[in-house]
């Protein structure tokens, strides 16, 4: 599972149905005796821990690493060899890596299924699945929704996968970002050619939020900038606070893949429209569904 485009809408619906079942009823030891290999070449809290939690809730085990300095990567081992080796020890692998295309490369060398948990600035498809699941839990249909994507749309891999999926489901997309962090042309071109969706671009969050059904905020990622000066130019350029929320409609959903820094004020957390912690929780159920379907313990 490398890209969100690997899934048909029917397959997405099955994942959501099963995730909903796990959320309501929990799970038996369906993956007992199975092992998830976890290869995190970059830091992660939610994605990694929710994958581990998902596998353990399904009765399976987890092995892997989250710090490459303790592995043979430190000795110069190439990605293909690391992943081929890990594949021999497990039934399913999840990888996060700083280079775009790393999950696809891993899938070419590994003997077990590979799940992409984020490859550089490219995609983060399981985040997209949990985002869609959260939207569907709160809205009747994705079709016709105006979804505003705001923040770092250039390096923010979650929004690339999400924009593709939303466009495929008939949502309208508005992008709000500083000029240097605009949605890559490769994504907008694909949206236009494949899904016939024209992306609307806005500079001001305060005006874009008025017609939004969903406001999806992203963090300006300090680690993606070449220098502190470049980061300082765009840091805190969009902040959702009570004033911004007062301009939004009462049914709008405020989402964020987390971690946040300053782009959502803490005083917004108690607003019923702020559902980002529920969104993070849903990550466990969606990943449980994905694991059990890929391993074939459910169909």
């Amino acid at each position: 599972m490398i890209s969100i485009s690997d899934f048909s809408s029917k397959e997405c619906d099955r994942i959501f149905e099963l995730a909903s079942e796990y959320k309501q009823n929990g799970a038996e030891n369906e993956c007992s005796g199975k092992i998830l290999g976890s290869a995190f070449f970059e830091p992660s809290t939610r994605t990694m821990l929710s994958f581990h939690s998902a596998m353990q809730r399904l009765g399976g085990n987890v092995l892997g690493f989250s710090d490459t300095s303790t592995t043979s990567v430190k000795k110069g081992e190439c990605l293909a060899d690391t992943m081929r080796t890990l594949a021999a020890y497990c039934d399913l692998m999840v990888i996060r890596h700083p280079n775009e295309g790393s999950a696809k490369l891993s899938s070419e060398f590994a003997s077990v299924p590979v799940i992409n948990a984020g490859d550089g600035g490219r995609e983060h498809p399981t985040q997209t699945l949990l985002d869609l699941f959260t939207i569907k839990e709160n809205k009747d249909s994705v079709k016709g929704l105006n979804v505003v994507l705001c923040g770092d749309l250039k390096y923010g891999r979650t929004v690339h996968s999400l924009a593709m999926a939303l466009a495929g489901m008939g949502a309208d997309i508005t992008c709000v970002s500083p000029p240097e962090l605009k949605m890559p042309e490769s994504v907008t071109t694909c949206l236009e050619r494949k899904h016939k969706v024209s992306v609307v671009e806005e500079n001001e969050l305060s005006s874009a939020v008025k017609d939004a059904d969903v406001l999806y905020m992203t963090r300006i990622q300090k680690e993606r900038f070449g220098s502190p000066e470049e980061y300082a130019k765009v840091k805190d350029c969009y902040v959702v606070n009570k004033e911004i929320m007062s301009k939004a409609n009462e049914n709008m959903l405020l989402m964020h893949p987390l971690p946040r820094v300053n782009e959502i004020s803490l005083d917004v957390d108690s607003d019923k429209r702020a559902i980002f912690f529920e969104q993070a929780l849903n990550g466990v159920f969606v990943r449980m569904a994905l694991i059990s379907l890929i391993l074939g313990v459910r169909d």
Partner: protein
Amino acid sequence: MSLKVDVIGNGTVIDHIPGGRGLLCLKVLGIESIDSPVILLSNVSSNNKGGKKDLIKIEDRFLTPKEHNKLAIIAPGATVNIINDTHVTDKRLISVPEKFVDVICCTNPNCVSNTESYISSSFAVERKEPLEVRCSYCDRVVGAKQLLRQVIG
């Protein structure tokens, strides 16, 4: 004006190169390292298609598949004639393939095809005219101008 050039005994004739692109084709084929005779006709009238074309004849030299694919970026629609004992023994159209494998590099420095040196780059053709390809690893779209810049070095 009609031009007559000698037939070659053994080698390659690349015909119907878009007018003015012949020198670029020779650059791709490494003109500086070719010892055998080379003939380049530039901007001659094209009987079949109208307009101008270039033509190259190279004695004792045959194209590799990689060179063939590189020429697809510069001169799609050209024809490659293989000459043995002054006769055309094979004729191939240079057409844009569905995929370019190990022909060009991804322009994204963070793409895994650049950081893991043991793998071959791979691009799917998105559009043939103007040529546009998409990296099979990172999805970066590379356009005609960048492709041309890469193959002529």
